C-alpha cells in the first residue's frame, strides 16, 4: 500500500465505518490542534478518547481523558497519533498489546513512519499517515469549503445537514446519519 496519496473513497470509507477514536498525544493546551480534533470529531458522532497521562479523569475538550490506551473502557476502532515520527513505534507497541486490536492506525499531519506503518499493516491494521481526520472529514463533507480550502472533490448532490446544533454536514450523500 503506497502512502504517498490516498483515494477519497478509501478515506471516506474509513471515516464512515469508524465509531470510536483514541487520540494519543492529546496535548495540555486548549490551543493545540489535537484539542480541535477531539472536539470536531466528537461533534460529528464519533466516540473520542483523549489519551494523556497528565489529564487522566479530566474533561479535555468536553470529553473524558484516559492515562493509557489500555484504560479505555470500550473497543477502539481507530488510534490517531499526535506524536513525533520517532515516538510512533512506542505508541504502536501499546496498540498491539490491546486485547481488541483497532482496525485503523492513523498518524497526524506531518507524521510519517514507514517502518511502523509496515508493522501495523502486518498485524492487520489499515494505516493512514500525514493526514488529519478533521481536515479529511472537512474536505470530504466539504465543510472545509467554508474557509476557502480546495476540497479536491466535485459533487452535484445536495449536501445533507448533520442534525441540529453546530453547523455540520454529513460525510457524504447517505453517510453517517446523526447518532
Amino acid at each position, binding site marked *: 500500500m503506497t502512502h504517498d496519496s490516498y*483515494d*477519497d*473513497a478509501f478515506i*471516506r470509507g474509513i471515516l464512515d465505518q469508524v465509531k470510536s477514536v483514541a487520540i494519543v498525544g492529546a496535548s495540555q*493546551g*486548549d*490551543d493545540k*490542534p489535537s*484539542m*480541535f480534533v477531539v*472536539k*470536531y470529531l466528537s*461533534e460529528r458522532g464519533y466516540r473520542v478518547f483523549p489519551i494523556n497521562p497528565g489529564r487522566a479523569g479530566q474533561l479535555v475538550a468536553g470529553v473524558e481523558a484516559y492515562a493509557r490506551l489500555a484504560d479505555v473502557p470500550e473497543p477502539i476502532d481507530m488510534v490517531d497519533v499526535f506524536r513525533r515520527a520517532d515516538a510512533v513505534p512506542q505508541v504502536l507497541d501499546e496498540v498491539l498489546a490491546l486485547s481488541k486490536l483497532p482496525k485503523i492506525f492513523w498518524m497526524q*499531519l*506531518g507524521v510519517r513512519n514507514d517502518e511502523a506503518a509496515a508493522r501495523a499493516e502486518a498485524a492487520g491494521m489499515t494505516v493512514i499517515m500525514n493526514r*488529519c481526520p478533521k*481536515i479529511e472529514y*472537512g474536505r470530504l463533507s*466539504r*465543510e*472545509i*469549503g*467554508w*474557509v*476557502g*480550502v*480546495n*476540497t*479536491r*472533490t*466535485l*459533487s*452535484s*448532490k*445536495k*449536501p*445533507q*445537514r448533520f442534525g*441540529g*446544533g*453546530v*453547523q455540520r*454536514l454529513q460525510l*457524504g*450523500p447517505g453517510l453517517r446519519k446523526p447518532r
Partner: protein
Amino acid sequence: MDQESKSAQRAPGFSTLSVHAGAQPDPTTGARATPIYQTTSFVFDDVEHAAQLFGLQTFGNIYTRIGNPTCNVLEERVAALEGGTAALSVASGHAAQVNVFHLLMTPGDEFVAAKKLYGGSINQFNHSFKAFGWNVRWADPDDISSFEKAITPKTKLIFIESIANPGGIVTDIEAIAKIAQKANIPLVVDNTLATPYLCRPFEHGADIIVHSATKFLGGHGNSIGGVLVDGGKFNWAGDDRYPMISKPRPEYQGIVMAETFGNFAFAIAARTLTLRDLGAALSPFNAFLIITGIETLPLRMQKHCDNTLSVAKYLSGHQAVKWVSYAGLPNDPTHKLAQKYCPKGAGSVLTFGLKGGFEAGVKLVSDVQLFSHLANIGDTRSLIIHPASTTHRQLNDEQKVAAGAGPDVVRLSVGIEDVEDLIADLDQGLA
C-alpha cells in the same frame, strides 16, 4: 456525479472544474446555481458554537468580512483551477497584493519585483508599500541574474507577472523560482493576464498566486474582485522571518497557523489575520458574477487568444505600425517562453507603437468605434488605451519605457467579438 465513485480516482478536466469546483446544490433549498448570500452575518446555534467559530476550532460562517458562502465558492473554484490548496477572495487585485504582503513583510523588509508590471502595481510598490516600510528592489525579467543580485538578507519575497502588462510578454517563472528557492523566500506570481487556463504558475515553482478577478476570471467587466491562492509548498513552519504563519498568534490563543493548518496555513492566515483586520472583503454579489464568468473561462480565453493573434499579425503588417509587442508572434523576444509557459495562447493584451507617435496614438484611440477607450483589460469587449497618459501616468519617462509604456505605446485588450470586425475597426482608425 461523485468524483470518486469509480474505482480509480480520476482528476477532472479544466472545463469541468471551471463549471463545478467549489459549488454544490444549496443544502437548504436545493438551488443549483450558487445562491448570493447577501447577508452581513450568520446566526450561531449557541454560545458554544460561537466560541468555536471565533477560536478557529470548527469550520463555518460568522461575518461576511471574514467569510461568506458565495465567496467561498469563488475561492475553491480558483484554488482548484490553479492547483492550489486554498484561496481567499478579497475586494480587488490590489487588495490581494496588500493582503499577501501584509502577511510576509514587516517594516524595513525588502522585496524584489520585476520591473515589467502593471502600472498600478508599480505605483503600489513605489508609494503605498514604501510608506509601510516595505522596500522594493526592481529587477529585469530580461536579465534573470538581476533578480539574484537584488536579494539581500532583508528580502522576504519575489514578485512577478506570468504574462506581463502591458506588452503581453512572458516571464521565465521557473528560472526566477529557482532563485527564490535558493534564497528560501516565496515567489509570488500575478497570473491575471494568463489565468490558469493559459498558465499554472504553481507547476513552475510559484508559491503564491494573486489575481485581479476583475479581469479575465470574471471576464465581463462588471465586478471588481481579487483572489490570492496558496500553493501549499512553501515551508513556513519554524521560519522566524514569517511570524504571522510560523509563530503562536495572540489573536487566537497562541495557535501556530503552520502547525494547525498544514499546507493551507497561508490562506487561513490571510483570512483570519489580515482580511479580518484590514477589511478588504469581496461583495457576495461580485463573487457571484465572477463565479458565473469563470464557468466559461476556457471558451473565452481561447477565443481571446485566437482573436489577439490575428489582430497582432494584422498590426505587424500595417504600414502605420512601427512595432508590436505580443509573445504570440513568432519573432517576439519572449515567444519561446510563451510556447513553454502558455502553449494554448499568449493572452489577449498587446501593445504596439505607431510611426506617427503620440499624436497618431491619440487619433486612433478617438477614432475607433468598436474598441472601448477605458482603463481595464480582460472584458468580452475589446478595449484600447494609451498607457503613458493613464495606467502608467505616474511613472517618470524612464520608468514608463522600462515598463513597456513609452509615450508612443497603445495597448489593446482584445475581446471575443468577430475578429473581422475588430480588424475593420482598427483599419479605419489607422487610416
